[in-house]
């Protein structure tokens, strides 16, 4: 709906925007290639450090790139990216759906590819001139001189000559994908210090742990453990569970209520009518993304300072994350509604808020409820560990017993009891919320 309106207002955007729009995937493809080569360079340096520097030079040191070394790395990876694109096979081209062909839409000969690569440098150095040519609608220097051009794959799919199809693992994508995953696996194995010998060698030492964990002791299920605290909610398993559930409930309700109006501000089809709406949309979406990217435990740290240790801090921490997460889910739901009823209501001359109230709200209520239930589920699970930073709930007693291992008797049995209770509650809520969600959607 919004798109058709836009088009009717201005026939075609200015040619600068057209030129930039064509250039965008090319720029992103180049950046992606550069980043992936940079990643490979990082990995190579890491492996050099691990297999050569630590072994032959200095075990306690780390191989660091000298200050003069950065320039060749940065430029070299860039050159590699450009070379890959001129060769016509690269991750960026493949992901952004670009194809390097001659202007006659045939595969370029190696000489033309080499020419393109060399001319690219001239063109990059004369960037100001190139941007003027771009605005004038002329082709870029390296495109023109080599007689090649980047096409969008979907435009030229019919025209390009068919090559013999290869098995996916011999295709460019497959090879690069397997190569990158294998390389990442290698570097990741070393970085995260995976030590299977340790895992299996110490397995026998963890037997006592498992033995205690599977023999839970429900001593303090409903009776207060004075070592942990003096309140029912803080110092018993049952109280902690109830508190966790209510923390999650309050956070979900509060978060949902706040996310509800925000989600309409973050929906493109509601806000995308004018510049102001677009700004509000972008700001709301950015807010969602920023606040969603920080886990609620980290928010717990801030709120423990703000309102003091306790369940309330946990509630607030969960709420912040819930607002962002639900806001995103809600607004995506609003964006995917059927525009038919909206247009029908708008055609009766209704105001914008009336359109939203009668056209949008009835369509989104069931899925909003389902998302909220789903979120409650997640919040219950999060609230079991938010006590780690002083957020209250069942985690309080869990982490007390865990930290008291060796200090008090059968603490692992107590931990086991808490974990069993968490499993039962989370499981039950999961089941109930899944059933209820099935019903309402």
């Amino acid at each position, binding site marked *: 709906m919004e798109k058709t309106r836009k088009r009717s207002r201005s026939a075609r955007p200015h040619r600068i925007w057209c030129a930039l729009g064509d250039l965008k995937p090319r720029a992103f493809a180049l950046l992606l290639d550069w980043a992936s080569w940079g990643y490979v360079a990082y990995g190579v340096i890491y492996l050099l450090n691990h297999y050569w520097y630590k072994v032959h030079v200095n075990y306690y040191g780390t191989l660091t790139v000298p200050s003069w070394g950065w320039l060749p790395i940065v430029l070299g990876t860039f050159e590699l990216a450009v070379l890959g694109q001129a060769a016509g096979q690269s991750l960026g081209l493949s992901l952004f759906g670009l194809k390097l062909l001659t202007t006659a839409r045939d595969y370029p000969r190696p000489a033309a590819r080499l020419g393109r690569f060399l001319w690219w440098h001239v063109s990059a150095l004369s960037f100001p001139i190139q941007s003027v040519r771009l605005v004038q609608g002329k082709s870029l220097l390296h495109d023109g001189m080599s007689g090649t051009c980047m096409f969008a794959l979907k435009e030229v799919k019919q025209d390009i000559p068919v090559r013999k199809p290869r098995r996916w693992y011999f295709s460019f994508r497959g090879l690069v994908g397997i190569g990158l995953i294998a390389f990442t696996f290698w570097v990741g194995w070393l970085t995260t210090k995976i030590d299977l010998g340790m*895992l299996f060698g110490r397995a026998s030492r963890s037997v006592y742990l498992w033995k205690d964990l599977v023999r839970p002791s429900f001593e303090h299920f409903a009776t207060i453990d004075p070592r942990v605290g003096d309140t029912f909610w803080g110092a018993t398993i049952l109280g902690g569970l109830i508190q966790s559930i209510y923390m999650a409930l309050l956070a979900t309700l509060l978060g949902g209520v706040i996310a509800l109006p925000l989600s309409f501000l973050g929906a493109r089809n509601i806000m995308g009518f004018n510049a102001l709406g677009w700004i509000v949309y972008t700001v709301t979406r950015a807010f969602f993304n920023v606040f969603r990217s920080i886990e609620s435990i980290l928010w717990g740290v801030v709120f423990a300072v703000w309102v003091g240790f306790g369940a309330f801090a946990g509630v607030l921490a969960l709420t912040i994350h819930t607002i962002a997460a639900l806001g995103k889910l809600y607004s995506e739901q609003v964006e995917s509604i059927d525009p038919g009823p909206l247009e029908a209501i708008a055609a009766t001359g209704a105001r914008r808020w009336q359109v939203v109230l009668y056209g949008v709200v009835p369509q989104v209520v069931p899925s909003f409820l389902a998302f909220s239930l789903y979120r409650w589920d997640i919040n219950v699970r999060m609230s079991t560990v938010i006590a780690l930073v002083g957020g209250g709930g069942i985690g309080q007693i869990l982490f007390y017993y865990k930290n008291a291992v060796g200090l008090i008797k059968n603490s692992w049995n107590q931990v086991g009891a808490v974990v069993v209770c968490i499993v039962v509650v*989370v499981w039950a809520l999961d089941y109930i919320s899944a059933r209820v969600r099935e019903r309402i959607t």
Partner: protein
Amino acid sequence: MEERYYAGFMKKRPQFMSSLLETRKRVTVFLVDVVAILYVWLTASYCLTMLFLHGEGVAGLPWWAIIVAVEATALWENLGVSIGMKLLRVRLVAKDSGSPTLVRRLVRFLVWHVSGLPLIGILAMSGGLAWHDRASGLRVVRSEEVSRVRRPLYAQSWFIAVALLVLASIATAMLVTGVNFRAFFSGAGKTARIWAAFLRPDWSILGDGIRLLLVTIFMAFMATFFGVVLAVPLSFAAARNLTGGWIGRPVYFLVRTTMSIIRSIEPIIWAIIFIVWIKVGAFPGVLALFVHSVADLTKLYSERLESIDPGPVEAIRATGATQLQVILHGIVPQIVNPFLSFTLYRWDINVRMATIIGIVGGGGIGERLYQYTSLWSWSKAGTMMLLIMLTVWVMDYGSARLRERLS
């Protein structure tokens, strides 16, 4: 309920089974209502005790509460539409599907004491007709079969009950979690320092931060990688439509149960166990994420497997293909893209989880971040948070775009 065929020639369920199912449904409706009433009672008495008696005396239910709740439920279900009836979609109508009169409702309520409560009803129920149904001439039917004028929401008893439930829950939640508005508004000043420091991050630790960030991303990658390797075969064993017979079904239940137990324990708790097992570092963090990923991915994958299109599978089976060939050519092409997109999604979650698993000693950037916050060096913590935000945002955006292309 969809029409199912039993033993080839019977179109309807055997009567014994259908009356058993009917009974189960009615008992569920009844239990939901009793629990709802008891819950409101309990929470309301807790709130009143806390608010007016300042927590003196124990908030609990007297033994006769259960009798009152059962009677109230019976009355409620006979006179109106209860929560349970709304949830399980049943209604009470007259035999000739008209609107029941008050007298009939009351007759049903009274006879119910004889037949419903002592569960004689179950025995007396032949074809879903208990004594109280016969005596009053009323029937419990599915709400789809009833057409009636809709009353406004606020005039329906189930809605009022839901509102009461929500209100009582909010009040209880506020009391249990110790909501403190005064602290919320007066304490805001205490965090001024934190926000100010977050706005001026300390860039001197940027190099260290990036290094740890890479460790975090690799942790997530390794956990996801191992998780996929294990979850793919497990998901076939956990898909209801692919497991059958004397071996398959127990395996299905075993895998499903184990996975949902593992999944309901947060990775942080797994990390604690693995740290005791191995030692502090990134490796136990990887293991914790891995264990949780396996369980989560198995669930996602197997749900996807359960919804595959059986057409191609049957077509390939009809050509006389072996079980392996059926899986390879009938199932795999259908699931590759969804599996990839689930994997990306899980990697995304793992990166976010990996940033906090360091709090208990699981390595990565979270460990350093938690150290800084414990020392109240907020500007350093701010740098770390910025890095985390940037990474999570990029991952989130990238994986969303990729998933869009995959689907």
